[in-house]
């Protein structure tokens, strides 16, 4: 009799367990947690402003809105809009000094002997006998707008598996991008573990107003002082039609409930990029040897390989040491076949100061090595550049650099279903070689969420 009772209790427990198993996913978001609230509206306004020791750089204003609707128990859609305005000046790859470049734009006849700031004298006459001196800045002014939209559809295939498909498009004056992605999440091990696999495809078109410049083609050059056989000053860069690039990304991930207060995640990503991977606006300086003044005597357009394979390992921990504190720690190791490796660590710590509001400090640090074709300049007489290089970029983003960010966020609940947040952060970027001044950026973001 007792045995029967025991079995009955076990059966009831099993039933209760199975019910809970269906109802409790590994990591639910707010919309899933409150089925009664079917629509989420999230709005964000971001202000981003860079300066360096010399002057202001890029300013970006970003407005974003996302509407998420739970269509049914199995199906959820998300529609997002982004509008960015970008303006200011960005480093173009030339070395950062008040260097002069000599071009033959004026037909004044003959040449003049010019003494440069560093004391080196030379004649500016070119083959046509004309001469001019032009100060070319090491930063390029730009202004652009970006309009982007995306659509995601999440569908529960069964009790333990869900799929997400997404489409996106982004338009700028000089850049279009179309994207598609798919992802499957599979809960196993009594929903303690979620396995994820995904794929994304981007087809982008680069379309600068003046066309795509010939890689390592001549922008400006002083023919009579150049001593590089492969550099033909008279052969200015050709310009081509808009170019395409294709980016494929593969993703595998595992998320594990580690204990009652800890969630851990590990991901592997593989990216395959092909096509025009060069930045059409980036340039590089050709300098005379230091012993004759080291003046800049030519400017070329940069050139990067047309294939790139990227990989990354990503680890994240979300830990709640108490009910009022949440720590988010992540680390990413990134590497590619351009010889770039990067380490990125990110830490956020949320402190609930009362049931309605919280403070969240943020600290991020990243360091990357240089691509095999990255350098700061080509110096006449350097044996490395005696022959024409296949590729060259002086863009700081593919050179050795470090980035450190620190900031604070304040969040507050609005009513029963709303959230407000504001964060202020400062990012600093440090470049190798000190040919480019350090950069400082302010990031201010206001976030608003409403659930209906």
């Amino acid at each position, binding site marked *: 009799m007792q045995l029967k009772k025991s079995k009955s209790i076990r059966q009831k427990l099993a039933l209760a367990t199975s019910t809970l198993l269906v109802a*409790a996913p590994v990591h639910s978001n707010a919309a899933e947690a409150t089925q009664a609230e079917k629509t989420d509206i999230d709005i964000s306004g971001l202000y981003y402003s860079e300066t360096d020791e010399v002057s202001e750089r890029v300013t970006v204003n970003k407005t974003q809105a996302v509407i998420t609707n739970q269509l049914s128990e199995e199906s959820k859609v998300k529609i997002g809009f982004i509008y960015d305005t970008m303006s200011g000046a960005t480093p173009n790859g030339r070395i950062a000094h008040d260097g002069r470049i000599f071009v033959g734009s004026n037909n004044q006849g003959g040449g003049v002997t010019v003494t440069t700031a560093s004391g080196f004298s030379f004649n500016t006459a070119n083959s046509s006998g004309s001469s001019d001196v032009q100060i070319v800045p090491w930063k390029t002014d730009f202004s652009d707008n970006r309009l982007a939209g995306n659509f995601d559809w999440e569908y529960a295939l069964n009790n333990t598996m869900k799929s997400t498909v997404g489409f996106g498009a982004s338009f700028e004056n000089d850049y279009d991008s179309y994207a598609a992605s798919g992802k499957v999440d599979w809960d196993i091990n009594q929903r303690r573990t979620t396995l994820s696999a995904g794929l994304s495809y981007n087809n982008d078109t680069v379309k600068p107003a003046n066309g795509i410049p010939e890689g390592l083609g001549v922008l400006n050059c002083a023919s009579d002082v150049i001593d590089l056989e492969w550099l033909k000053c008279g052969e200015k860069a050709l310009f081509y039609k808009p170019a395409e690039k294709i980016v494929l990304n593969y993703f595998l991930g595992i998320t594990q409930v580690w204990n009652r207060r800890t969630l851990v995640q590990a991901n592997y990503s593989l990216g395959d990029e092909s096509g025009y991977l060069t930045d059409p606006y980036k340039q590089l300086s050709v300098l005379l040897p230091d012993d004759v003044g080291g003046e800049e005597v030519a400017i070329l357009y940069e050139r990067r390989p047309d294939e790139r394979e990227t990989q990354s390992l990503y680890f994240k921990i979300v830990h709640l040491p108490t009910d009022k504190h949440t720590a988010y720690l992540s680390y990413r190791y990134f590497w590619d076949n351009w010889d770039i490796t990067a380490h990125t660590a990110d830490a956020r710590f949320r402190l609930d100061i009362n049931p309605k509001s919280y403070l969240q400090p943020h600290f991020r640090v990243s360091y990357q090595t240089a691509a095999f074709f990255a350098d700061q300049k080509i110096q006449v007489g350097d044996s490395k550049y005696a022959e024409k290089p296949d590729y060259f970029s002086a863009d700081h983003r593919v050179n050795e650099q470090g980035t450190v960010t620190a900031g604070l966020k304040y969040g507050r609940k609005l009513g029963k279903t709303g959230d407000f947040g504001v964060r202020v952060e400062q990012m600093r970027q440090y470049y190798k070689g000190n040919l480019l001044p350090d950069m400082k950026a302010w990031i201010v973001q206001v976030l608003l969420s409403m659930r209906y």
Partner: protein
Amino acid sequence: MYDKKNIVFYLKIFLLTFFVIQGTGCAYQQVKPWHRDILAKDSAQLIPDALEYEADEHIYFSKEAAKGGQGVGGGGCGCN
């Protein structure tokens, strides 16, 4: 000023913290479904605020060579 030593130092501190939390404060337990109350909180999500995450992804994508890691998607601008 660029100082590789400082950056590497920060990274080492971070990694140490990461593994200390993993190794001591967070022993593995087979959590039952009815013990998921704490992890069901809004704050206990891997990405607690999607728009904050997306803004950061965009900023660092346009300023660094490394990208992604948390999922599929991203990119879609001429900023890199």
